[in-house]
């Protein structure tokens, strides 16, 4: 009877341990996916007839954070100089600051997730949770900022008020991914807490 109980407990522990490993790995994979999501259109002008007219992705903003030359024609900055910076200067600067914060937060979260992969620690998951909340908030703010470019001079000047044009953003997807990361981390934290309680 005692042997059976011990066996069951060991199987349960293994399952718990496996789940913890799964969640730790999952967080790292999702954060890796986030780096791919930076290739999504951070802000772009969409024309119903022609598709995407001009575009700036997350990496364009990250590259810009290293040299801060918004008037440059370099292709690593996408169409930032024209029309975005020219017609929506302050929106672009705000989005630039937010993207820089998002990028460095991604790196910090990856470092924490990698550390957690080596040695699971509830305190780290707590720090991770706080940072991932900030991360989601900044991503949501960046998404809203990108959409508010519809109120800038881009549409009336650059697009001559063409009703078929609008400024759109795909930051909603990294935002949703950040929520998934946050949820997985909360589950991981609970698993670690129950494991500690059992011990």
């Amino acid at each position: 009877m005692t042997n059976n109980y011990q066996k069951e407990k060991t199987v349960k522990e293994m399952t718990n341990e496996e789940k913890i490993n799964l969640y730790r790995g999952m967080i790292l994979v999702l954060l890796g996916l986030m780096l791919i999501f930076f290739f999504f259109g951070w802000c772009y002008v969409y024309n119903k007839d022609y598709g995407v007219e001009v575009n700036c992705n997350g990496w364009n903003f990250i590259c810009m954070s290293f040299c801060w030359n918004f008037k440059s024609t370099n292709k690593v900055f996408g169409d930032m100089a024209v029309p975005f910076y020219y017609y929506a200067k302050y929106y672009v600067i705000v989005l630039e600051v937010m993207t820089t914060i998002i990028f460095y937060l991604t790196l910090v979260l990856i470092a924490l997730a990698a550390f957690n992969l080596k040695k699971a620690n509830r305190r780290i998951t707590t720090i991770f949770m706080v940072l991932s909340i900030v991360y989601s908030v900044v991503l949501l703010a960046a998404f809203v900022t990108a959409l508010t470019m519809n109120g800038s001079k881009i549409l009336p000047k650059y697009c001559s008020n063409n009703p078929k044009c609008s400024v759109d953003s795909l930051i909603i997807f990294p935002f949703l991914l950040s929520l998934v990361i946050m949820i997985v981390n909360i589950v991981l934290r609970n698993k670690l807490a129950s494991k500690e309680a059992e011990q």
Partner: protein
Amino acid sequence: MKKSLFLIPSLLLLVGCQNDCKITESTFFLVMTNIQYYPEEYINKEITLDCFTYNVKDVNNKEYLCGVRKCTAGFGCKCGKDTVIGFILNYDGDIPEPKNQYEDTNEKAWIHLVGKLASEEKTKIEINSYDAEGNIADTTEIVEFLSFNVSSLETITDYSGLAYFVSK
């Protein structure tokens, strides 16, 4: 991996034109658009480009001889009709007369130019508007051109590699 580590900083160093600005076929639209929006960035730089001659006549029949290429209106936005992108040319020597400037053909008076922007200020030219059939409409519109001080001009005879219409 090593390559990309070097590539990113190198790309970041290549920020637009440095001292000289050689506009090529692949960069024509992007750099010329940038010059129109941010002339102050190019004011003391030597600019090299290939374009064709084009006459702009204002409502008072005053003519401005320009070096241009055709592009979509809005400098990249496909919302409007086609337009031209280029400069009013300031040159002491002879400039070839425009040829087939309105026609959709590459058979134009092509020139190779070296020079500098005369000023950051644009010249506003009031021109007649045209309707969809190409007839002069009752309304007028304002077009703006930067002026270009040409230091060297050569006629291009083999323009097979040049496109009269440029886009992104």
